[in-house]
């Protein structure tokens, strides 16, 4: 039933955005030359694949040439640094996460990255970030894990970014335990560590879906401000005494100063593509469906992420 609703929602979005796209085409903005699409994620992974498939769909729909290019590392900061100095005429865009322009931008003090330095285009999908453990640990709920920690078990907690490390710390503090926080590279590495038994528990942003469905992994908690789609009964961060959350999205951005017609045309083309064909199917499968946030809403989201990062850092000090 849930999939049916999701499919219906996706279809509705699709028709809606398809109409806007043809509308945008009518306005006639066209990039002058091929568009360089910087991808801040390792080649071949889920995020990379979604970016490339979206590029294919945009090309199919509009005829624009798009050249994807990997610039990885430093939580998206490398990609944003490269994008910052590129022309703001719609021929350069980047796929990053909202965290790159939020917490990571604040943490990378010297780099000079702020949301104001970029034009947000559209988000494509949100994280289904959960606190995940292996099923054979024997914990059915978050409380079981806390009980095990209080009984004297040393628990290692895998995280894939400094922001999540702060959240893990606060989560432990609020529940009266101290986790050994282990930062690893990427969500896949957290899952590998948990599967192999090197880590006891960790944050995973959606890749746990299959493992949870097959019963090998358990979503102990939602790291978001709302419940997980897959495990709605798991407590969310605010239920566990932490006022921050790991809410985040994959997002396309361009350099600051992008003309309005270019911004609108790119936003429409990308958001339509994210719901279309192979791109739409892949995002549905890997991230549980598209989440499109554009325009002023996106600007506000990026700015508030950036502003609240300082508070999170302070809380975790």
């Amino acid at each position, binding site marked *: 039933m849930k999939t049916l609703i999701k499919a219906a929602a996706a279809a509705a979005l699709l028709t809606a955005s398809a109409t806007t796209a043809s509308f945008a085409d009518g306005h006639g903005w066209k990039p002058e030359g091929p568009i360089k699409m910087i991808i801040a994620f390792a*080649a*071949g*992974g*889920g995020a990379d*694949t979604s970016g*490339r*498939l979206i590029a*294919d769909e945009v090309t199919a729909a509009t005829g624009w040439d798009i050249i994807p*290019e990997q*610039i*990885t*590392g*430093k*939580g998206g*900061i*490398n990609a944003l*640094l490269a994008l910052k100095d590129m022309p703001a005429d719609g021929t350069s865009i980047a796929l990053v996460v909202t965290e790159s322009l939020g917490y*990571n931008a604040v*943490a*990378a*003090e*010297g*780099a000079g990255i702020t949301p104001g330095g970029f034009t947000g285009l559209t988000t494509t999908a949100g994280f289904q970030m959960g606190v995940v453990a292996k099923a054979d640990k024997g914990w059915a709920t978050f409380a079981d894990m806390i009980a095990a920690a209080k009984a004297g078990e*040393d628990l*290692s907690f895998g995280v894939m970014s*400094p922001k999540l490390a702060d959240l893990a710390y606060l989560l432990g503090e609020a529940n009266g335990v101290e986790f*050994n*926080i*282990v*930062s*690893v*590279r990427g969500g896949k590495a957290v*899952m*590998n*560590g948990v*599967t*192999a*038994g*090197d*880590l006891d528990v960790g944050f995973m942003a959606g890749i746990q879906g*299959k*493992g949870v469905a*097959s*019963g*090998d992994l358990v979503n102990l908690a939602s790291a978001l401000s709302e419940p997980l789609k897959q495990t709605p009964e798991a407590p969310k961060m605010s239920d566990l005494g932490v006022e921050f959350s790991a809410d985040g999205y994959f997002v396309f951005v361009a350099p600051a100063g992008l003309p309005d017609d270019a911004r609108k045309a790119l936003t429409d083309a990308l958001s339509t593509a994210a719901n279309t064909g*192979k791109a739409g*199917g*892949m995002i549905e*499968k890997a991230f549980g469906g598209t989440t499109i946030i554009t325009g002023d809403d996106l600007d506000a989201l990026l700015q508030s992420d950036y502003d609240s990062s300082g508070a999170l850092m302070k809380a975790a000090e």
Partner: protein
Amino acid sequence: MGIWDHAVMGFMSVFSGPEAFSILGVGISITLIMILTGFLMGITVGATPGLAGPMAMAIALPILISIFGFSQDAFLPVMGFLIGIMKGATLGGSVPAILFNTPGTPDAYMTTLDGYPMAQKGQAKKALKVAHLSSVSGDTFSDVVLVLCAPFLAVLVESYLDLPEKAALLILSLAFIAAVIGGSVGKGLISMGLGLLAAMIATGEDFYPRLTMGSPALAEGFPIATAILGVLILGEVFKSIEDMIRSGIQSAPRPAATVAGDRLSFAEIRRLAPHIARSSVIGTIIGALPGIGSTLAATLGYAFARARYDNKRSASDPRFGEGAPEGIAATEAANSAVSGANLIPVLSLGIPGNAAAVFLILGMESIGGFNPGPAVFRVPSDGFNPELIMAFGLFTAMFLTNGLNWTIGGVFMRAVGVMARVPKEVLLPVVLLLTLTAIYVQENTMAAMWIAVGFGVLGYIMRRVGMSPLPFVIAFILGGKLEETARQAFAATGGDAFFLFTHPIAAAFMVMSLAVIVFNLRKPSP
């Protein structure tokens, strides 16, 4: 349904998939075509200096996904193609190592030690035949072990190895390679230290790139393929050019087309067999360990074979390093045996052991329907487990590719022997062009060219002072992983600075690391 029914269904799924075309009413499934195409591409890529299997897999994967999509039907054709590349390239990789002294991957480096001297003596075909026999034997053996042991072996290994043990295991691998390769422990350690230093650049956890001296070209660190190809191939090219300048182009002895002793007799195969068998076992064991890779296997196989061989060698036989077929056999069997066993952690835990396995996992993940993990090998009490059937489909694809390796691979290896007759003054520019092109295709920047040339100069200097470039390359590859694992082990043990010594298995690995260095220091150099 029992395990046997799953095996039969998996086997059938390879042959009965969507039809590509039919011959006399018998449908040929698309999967078979893809396995064959992948294999042909792999062996060509492997045999081309400067190209290697993982790179071809990286390029092929997105193309395959866009052709076949990510439905369950796409699984076997796409994975068959990737496995074809992986296995074809494993065999083909020995070709440039033997013929041109330019290994495309670090694990083929040991093959050059005896392969190239044999080629120079006019025994190129024999060397290639030895490589073919041992590579495919090792690979097949490893696949048999995979099919028999995959469900429980990886889980068993992982239950003993936690983060501190993994960090210690990496240190042991580096210590072993530094101490054993190249004859001198001191030079080996220096070479390894330089590799670790290069791996430090721009990596780490901070939000600013370290040790780059502000250069934006280095902000992502040295690109891995660029550095390796620079040291291994450009270094050799530079050295050969210098040799040619010193001794003149004409005086370089051209190997005769065929000389006596370019055949591989049955008696010789019998002599090689124990080396192949020993190395196959070594390679399989190393392959089943997480994240160590085929180069250590090749080194171990070679070192053990050298020790055995020196004891039994008659005066007329060539030493290791002077063109002994046993050296090729030991190396190739070991590095090829890694590839099958590497899938043990891949299938049962979803953890890659080497670069090729990374792309297999990416393929599985992009397609869906197959979720590597313990659930794959669960036999349900009623109904059937589709993932287990897919796993058996993969095994079938692997054995089909082994068949291709034995047959078409053999023909191929005999045919490329002709290339040994290409004179060096023609060959070197071609190799140089191919290598630089391969690097440019992967990195798309001019900076990568300069970095490659820089590493080429480093490789040249190392060869001039008699220092093996292999410890450098391995340390460069494993350096990041070592730092990461050590950092994680430190964090996971709650900030215990002595995590390498407080866990018994880790401590044992550390003692072995010290022992291997001390033992090799005391040994009189040959």
